């Protein structure tokens, strides 16, 4: 039950993009087309889950044992950078077409703050091992959900008659804001 709660909380109630406002860069940058948004979401989910596992291990078996938890930021960055490199190699070998579709945004997952946030938050909330895996996975699914919804809306926006001052970035940011408002509706889900 705890795992289910952690999962739902990470996906909708505390959606990383629309409630914590982290990972906005790819959320705006890769949400123009539905299929590339989906593959970006999947790549981020993969990296987040892996990061969650590895950072939990590092925190609990190295940093806490050696009494140096202040190193967590530096250590997490190293972990994330290496994992993204690994994912890049993996995708390049196994799915070359996806590798081309993601382009520059694949290495840029490194600088996606949502991933560092996953690592920091699970350390802060002192989740157990399984919980932190579920949490990382849920956060990734939440990111995917947000970016896919956004891409769907933006594909519709392409065809709508938008007043000139609102075209382009303006209407995208307004959309993101309205989407965030809508997601606030989930906040009553867990307390009830």
């Amino acid at each position, binding site marked *: 039950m705890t795992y289910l709660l952690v999962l739902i909380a990470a996906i909708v109630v505390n959606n990383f993009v629309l409630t914590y406002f982290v990972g906005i860069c790819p959320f705006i940058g890769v949400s123009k087309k539905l299929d590339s948004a989906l593959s970006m979401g999947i790549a981020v989910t993969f990296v987040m889950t892996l990061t969650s596992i590895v950072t939990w291990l590092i925190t609990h078996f190295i940093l806490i044992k050696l009494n140096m938890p202040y190193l967590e930021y530096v250590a997490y960055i190293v972990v994330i950078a290496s994992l993204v*490199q690994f994912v890049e*190699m993996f995708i390049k070998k196994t799915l070359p077409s996806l590798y081309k579709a993601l382009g520059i945004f694949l290495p840029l997952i490194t600088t996606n703050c949502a991933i560092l946030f996953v690592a920091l938050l699970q350390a802060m909330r002192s989740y157990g091992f399984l919980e932190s895996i579920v949490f990382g996975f849920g956060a990734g699914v939440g990111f995917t959900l947000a970016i896919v919804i956004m891409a769907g809306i933006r594909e519709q926006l392409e065809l709508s008659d938008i007043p000139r001052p609102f075209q382009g970035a303006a209407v995208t940011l307004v959309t993101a804001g309205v989407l965030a408002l809508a997601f606030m509706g989930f906040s009553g889900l867990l307390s009830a």
Partner: protein
Amino acid sequence: MTIVLAAALMGLIGLAFSIFLVIANTRFAVEVDPRISKIEENLPGVNCGGCGYPSCSAYAEAVGKEGAPVDLCVVGGEDTSRTVARIMGVQVSDELKEKLIAVVFCQGDSEASAFPGDYEGIPDCAAAVYSQDVAKRCKYGCVGLGSCVKACPFDAIHLSPTGIPFVDAEKCTACGKCVAACPRDLIELHPISHDTLVYCKSQDPGVIARKICKKACIACGICVKAAEKDENGDSVRMKGNLAVVTPEPYSAKPEYGEKCPTDCYATDRNVVNRRKVLDQQKARNEASASVAR
């Protein structure tokens, strides 16, 4: 002491991950043919799709891996073909390919064609055609909303003030983007030196066509008769309610259109800079001919 310990720890973690990455790199190594990246460097990089591949890198890969022809790049033309051939170590034929350009088969501009009202939907030709709500009455003619203009990666096609696209022969690379963009298939690729064509695609019976557009083919067959008289009957043929100039070998002469009542059998329409490009081509052919000698 703490600082040293922290630095040592971070160094160890970093080392562990770099070893992991090195192992991963050898496990997941992707072998790339060096010729492919070299070909890609020498392609124009505009990803127009004129070669039939989705992007320049896809074409480079096709040449390197599947042995696709080296002279498919229409944008780079002659020079690029030679460079690619040199990289692949093959010969290109010395014969210069005739440059193709896009030709717009409609002259029904705002002066010639009937406009019953304004179209106010999505400013896109395909949308206008699918919604059946087009300002121009001819159901074969140019909608004039410029989807071809938007599709052109080379800024080579523009709308005239009267609403018909015209092609800049100098900039046009015959990539075919506008051909695909036109919902009424009014754009075709033809060799630049053959500009005597029937600039209409209307299949309406003559009476209706004449009512709708001053420059429509009304299927009177005068050009066909003139061609038959010249013992060149194959060069222009009636296809339904439309006279069509037969491509390959494009033997139709401009004179056959002298008596065309609607001026749709015509020469050099909807194109600018054609003469300039022809002159350049001629000069280049002469230069290469003298080199060959």
